[in-house]
């Protein structure tokens, strides 16, 4: 399968890429890992006349920690995050990176591309919405940072202007006494999950002091289950509070029936995943080292 013909432009820097986008007009698109865009172009669902390739821009792939935040260059590949030492201290990032598709797709796909694509089933957005995440954006006119909570506005839609790109993603490192976990249910590796649950919990003794719960693949954008978080906050994490959180998750999600399952099935699945993710997050909050893997059918 061939995409429609297009002109190829290789950016030497991110500002140059933004300038190229503004000069080439609406019909130009950025190419990062290509693991969403190229399949869409081959199926002719996307037909850009110009591609601006970011892969040759030096210094766009990095993970570093500064002032209590981890910073990812936009072109950092999923596999680089999977294999980085950051996953030991910030395990929810490893849960996410290691569970995306398969080795080959993780070797190409980028965190910046995943957030910019805003696929309702994309893993990064669901996970990073449980964290304090800022998206640093660059256009020929300005540089700005947008909290992830404001960045994705609809399915496949972000606040990015046509000639604006993601330069960096900055995630605050959670403090002591807090733990996170991300679990998804998948039919096989190289497909998006059927449903997924990201949880970040802060414990003080037996009491949950703070909670953030986000569900993936069960709405047009990742679903922030605030009522479910309320069901846990200032309470003991026990069967009763977890059951209340699961009920709140069933209420909050808005899944579409498709070949992966009925809406009712996905609702139940999301609640079950949340339960497991809470268990892991609480253990991690207590300092336990827990390895998890997505659940494959």
């Amino acid at each position, binding site marked *: 399968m061939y995409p429609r*013909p297009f002109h190829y432009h290789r950016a030497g820097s991110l500002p140059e890429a933004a300038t190229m986008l503004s000069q080439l007009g609406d019909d130009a698109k950025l190419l990062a890992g290509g693991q969403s865009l190229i399949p869409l172009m081959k199926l002719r669902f996307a037909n850009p006349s110009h591609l601006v390739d970011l892969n040759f821009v030096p210094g766009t792939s990095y993970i570093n920690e500064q002032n209590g935040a981890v910073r990812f260059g936009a072109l950092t590949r999923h596999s680089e995050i999977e294999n980085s030492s950051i996953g030991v201290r910030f395990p929810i990032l490893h849960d996410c990176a290691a569970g995306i598709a398969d*080795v080959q797709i993780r*070797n190409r796909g980028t965190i910046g591309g995943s957030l910019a694509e805003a696929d309702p089933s994309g893993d990064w957005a669901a996970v990073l919405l449980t964290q304090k995440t800022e998206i640093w954006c660059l256009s020929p006119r300005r540089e700005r940072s947008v909290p992830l909570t404001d960045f994705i506005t609809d399915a496949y839609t972000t606040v990015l202007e046509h000639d604006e790109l993601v330069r960096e993603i900055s995630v605050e490192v959670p403090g002591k006494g807090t733990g996170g976990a991300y679990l998804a249910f998948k039919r096989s590796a190289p497909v998006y999950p059927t449903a997924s649950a990201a949880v970040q919990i802060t414990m003080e003794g037996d009491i949950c002091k703070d909670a953030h719960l986000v569900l993936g693949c069960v709405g047009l954008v990742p679903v922030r289950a605030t009522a479910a978080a309320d069901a846990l906050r200032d309470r003991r994490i026990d069967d009763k509070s977890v059951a209340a959180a699961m009920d709140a998750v069933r209420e909050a999600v808005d899944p579409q029936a498709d070949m992966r399952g009925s809406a009712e099935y996905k609702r139940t699945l999301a609640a079950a995943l949340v339960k497991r993710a809470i268990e892991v997050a609480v253990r991690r909050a207590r300092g336990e080292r827990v390895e998890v893997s997505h659940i494959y059918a």
Partner: protein
Amino acid sequence: MPETIDKVAIQLKVNGKLYSLAVEPRTLLVELLREELNLTGTHVGCDTTYCGACTVLLNGASVKSCTMFAVQADGAEILTVEGLAKDGKLHPIQKAFGDSYGLQCGYCTPGLMLSTFQLVTKNHEPSENEIRKAIAGNTCRCTGYQNIFKAIRLAAQNMKGA
């Protein structure tokens, strides 16, 4: 639709051999390998980034060559299945797949061997789980995978000495 599309000059190494070519931007890496360079060992199965029959190594990292444009391989080193054997001698991975009956029709095999290559060059004692993860992006419609697992364990052992 754009009227005339400029070809792009690229240089890449495939299996150690340097090529200088001009490619149409929409040419996929797998098409370049198969149609221009006549390296037909890299297969096209699904053409939709699922099956991994088109897996090659790009600067040592496995990628699906049906989901990358050839222009993006400019300056890169590619390893395909044709680059595994040396001086008429099978690579230990190839030998292991043969000895373990890790293939039937062989369609998935080049891709699986390159995924294996990425795994065993870093890890000589992969666990069952590590093997499963390493080949999760490669579909085999014939073998049922059991002999492929055997082949990969054997390949890892064979390469320990190498």
